[in-house]
């Protein structure tokens, strides 16, 4: 993506970093022409050469491979039966290798079957089921990922997507079972309430950053916990708690406020994924085509220069955080409006806020990249469920895989060194936007 942009002459490099990279690219291109005869390489050869270069796609793919290798090792060392075969590995190495291979390949096979396609599935519903699960997990991650990515582009590190999603889920849930509204309108109001809830929670660190300079990282972390405790308190209040239950669970959201199912009632995929694609498009438009987006990126790359140029940095900070909060709140609202239980519980938002950080980093803080990254994470989550129930491999492995993938893509130099990749053309992800405290 970066290449295509920096290659076209009508676009200025967005950051100094990009400009530097362009300069490097140009010199690299210039050198061979002066030494070699002007023989144009074929398209096929170019493709192969680029495939093994440290570009974004290759690095991401290899990071996934590396993460799965580490995950496989973790599976082997934590399986006593397989580990037992390693005690006589010098005598019969085939045993140990076979046992390890069976364990790991079966687990990853189930991961794939649960996320994409199960060849043994009979009937349309069963065949669509993995995709439906993947999309269900993807939708909220797109929103939290966009939230983190948008803030990142504005030079702010939003660790508070979790808290903003929590406030979003609270507002959406309350609107969902407290307001008596007709179908259609009710859903709109509930979704909007979720966005407002998140926006309020994003506004606080935004205004504190703008007015006092208080660092948003620490404030958003703290607000995550405040929101979490507020949710726990709220659920057991009269009028919120389900009167038929003794445990901490709220009344269910009215059917009129629930997101419609996409593939019939037996599959969980809901309209949230459509909203997610629309939101991705909207954020991409906001960032790349609107005045606000330009100001936002300018402030993100150099606040001092932006202020000199007449951009109100404080206003931009507040707006960025309000938009980021609203996006996370929308993601949170789906956790109550789009789930089967459709009620608030202490763990209703799961980890979508923290996963959103990983999604944003994996998506190279670009809107469409975030969508793809969320799809990958949603697939891992959906497949992880099947892996847990069929292979007995804990779902926590998915968290490990996700964290490892992001660690590897954050340090492309490491991946490059491991696989001896050709010199980078556009490998460095723009993750280092927030600098220190």
């Amino acid at each position, binding site marked *: 993506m970066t290449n295509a942009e920096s290659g076209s002459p009508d676009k200025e490099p967005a950051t100094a970093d990009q400009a530097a990279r362009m300069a490097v690219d140009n010199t690299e291109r210039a050198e061979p022409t002066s030494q070699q005869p002007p023989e144009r390489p074929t398209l096929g050869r170019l493709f192969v050469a680029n495939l093994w270069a440290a570009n974004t796609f290759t690095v991401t793919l290899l990071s996934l491979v590396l993460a799965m290798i580490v995950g496989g090792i973790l599976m082997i060392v*934590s399986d006593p039966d397989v580990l037992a075969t390693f005690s006589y590995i010098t005598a019969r190495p085939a045993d140990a290798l076979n046992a390890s291979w069976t364990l790991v390949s079966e687990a990853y096979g189930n991961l794939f079957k649960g996320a994409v396609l199960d060849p043994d599935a009979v009937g349309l519903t069963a065949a669509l089921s993995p995709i439906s699960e993947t999309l269900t997990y993807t939708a909220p991650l797109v929103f939290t990922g966009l939230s983190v990515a948008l803030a990142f582009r504005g030079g702010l590190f939003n660790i508070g997507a979790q808290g903003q999603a929590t406030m979003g889920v609270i507002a959406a849930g309350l609107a969902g079972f407290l307001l008596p509204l007709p179908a259609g309108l009710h859903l709109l109001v509930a979704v909007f309430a979720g966005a407002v809830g998140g926006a309020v929670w994003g506004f606080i660190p935004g205004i504190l950053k703008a007015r006092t300079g*208080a660092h948003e990282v620490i404030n958003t972390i703290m607000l995550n916990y405040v929101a979490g405790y507020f949710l726990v*308190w709220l659920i057991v209040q009269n009028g919120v708690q389900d009167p038929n239950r003794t445990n901490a669970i709220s009344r269910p959201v009215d059917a009129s406020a629930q997101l419609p199912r996409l593939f019939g009632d037996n599959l969980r995929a809901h309209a949230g994924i459509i909203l997610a694609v629309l939101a991705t498009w909207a954020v991409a438009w906001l960032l790349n085509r609107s005045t606000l987006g330009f100001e936002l990126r300018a402030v993100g790359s150099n606040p001092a220069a932006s202020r000199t140029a007449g951009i109100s940095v404080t206003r931009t900070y507040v707006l960025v955080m309000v938009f980021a909060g609203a996006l996370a709140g929308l993601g949170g609202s789906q956790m109550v409006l789009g789930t089967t239980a459709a009620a608030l519980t202490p763990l209703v938002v799961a980890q979508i806020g923290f996963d959103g950080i990983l999604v944003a980093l994996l998506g190279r803080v670009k809107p469409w990249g975030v969508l793809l990254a969320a799809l990958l994470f949603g697939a891992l989550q959906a497949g992880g469920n099947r892996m847990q129930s069929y292979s007995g491999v804990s779902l*926590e492995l998915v968290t490990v895989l996700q964290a490892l993938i992001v660690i590897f893509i954050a*340090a492309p130099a490491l991946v490059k060194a491991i696989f001896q990749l050709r010199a980078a053309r556009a490998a460095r992800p723009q993750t*280092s936007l*927030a600098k*220190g405290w």
Partner: protein
Amino acid sequence: MSTMAVDDVAVAPVNEGFWTRARKTGLVLTALGLLAVLLFTTLAASEPARFTLSEDASGAALKINGTVGAALFGVVALAAGVAILAGLPKRWFTLVLGVGLVGFVVSFLCWQVSTAPAGQNFMPLVNIVRGTFILALPLIFGALAGVLCERSGVVNVAIEGQLLMGAFSGALFGSLSGNLWVGLVAAAVGGTFISLLLAVFAIRYLVDQVVMGIVLNLLAVGITGFLYERLMQPDPAKYNSAPHFSNWEIPLLSEIPVLGPALFAGNIFLYLGLLLVLVIHIGLFRTRWGLRTRSVGEHPTAADTLGVRVLRLRYRNVLLAGAVAGIGGASYTLALFSFTKNMIGGKGFIALAALIFGRWSPTGALLAALFFGFADQLATYLSAINSAIPSQFLAMLPYLATILAVAGLVGRVRAPAADGKPYIKG
């Protein structure tokens, strides 16, 4: 994280006219005092509120009528607030602020204890102090790990992961060997493992340190959770039954009323934590290593020019921090509980808050950790006496206090200048 010294960020200029930072603080304290005098006094019952000097209702006690106590200490808070508002000399500021805040808390306690159900309207001070220290322990270790890292210029958001990994490997290897000390060393190594990843990626590969910290926390949650479900849950007898350190009573000192039984009859982690505060304080401000660490954290280029090996010092401090945090994690699994999934549960982030609240100094971090531990203990106590205040709101207190602190309402908070900035020699 700095409130004022934000070099690359536009900050609305602070108008230091009449409303100085001190006066704003005084205003807040005055409001708190008014709240105490008006609300707490009205709500308090005219029953005696007893603060017993033991673990239960028996023995000597400080006794005061609930209404009188709430009013009296409320007035103390109010007076302190007004004094600051009126423009107190600077050197008195901290003392008067402290007195005012203590007055507010005691007034609050008089109200709560006096309205507790009959037979429960006493507060066992020994339990409260002991609980405060126990709950503060992981925070102390975590915050010290933060001090070591950040004073040398590496932001440590991975405290949570270091604590968790320490708790896990302490439990695992303590169980496998059946030996406490093996467990303790393993805990330190576990914390160091997370630190090593942080150090290599932040120093060698120049990955953003906050990003790396957040990702490492998730990695630690994932790895420990995965291995817990694969090993510890199926076979807890083999993998999750680490021996626990017993309490050591220090003769003579443990005879001191209230503080003695609470402070000098604890386990090794309590003594180690307090000792580490002292050692790191002296080390940081009185030794060559400390001077170098601070200079690397403030101005690495200057330090490098003078011959300090910046990167090596950073590696060493980050690894040391991991060991300290790892031992802090073991204060759970080798003294109190067996390991459970995600058992640190956000304490690492409160430790980060304590670090900032304590202004990046070991003693400040200790005080902040104790304050947060007290809030935690108070929440437990109040829910035990069926207080009208929901425990969740008390649990929010540390987080809200930290937000106020970094927003500059309490005092100036400034991070080491080079904190979070990778150093590239050149």
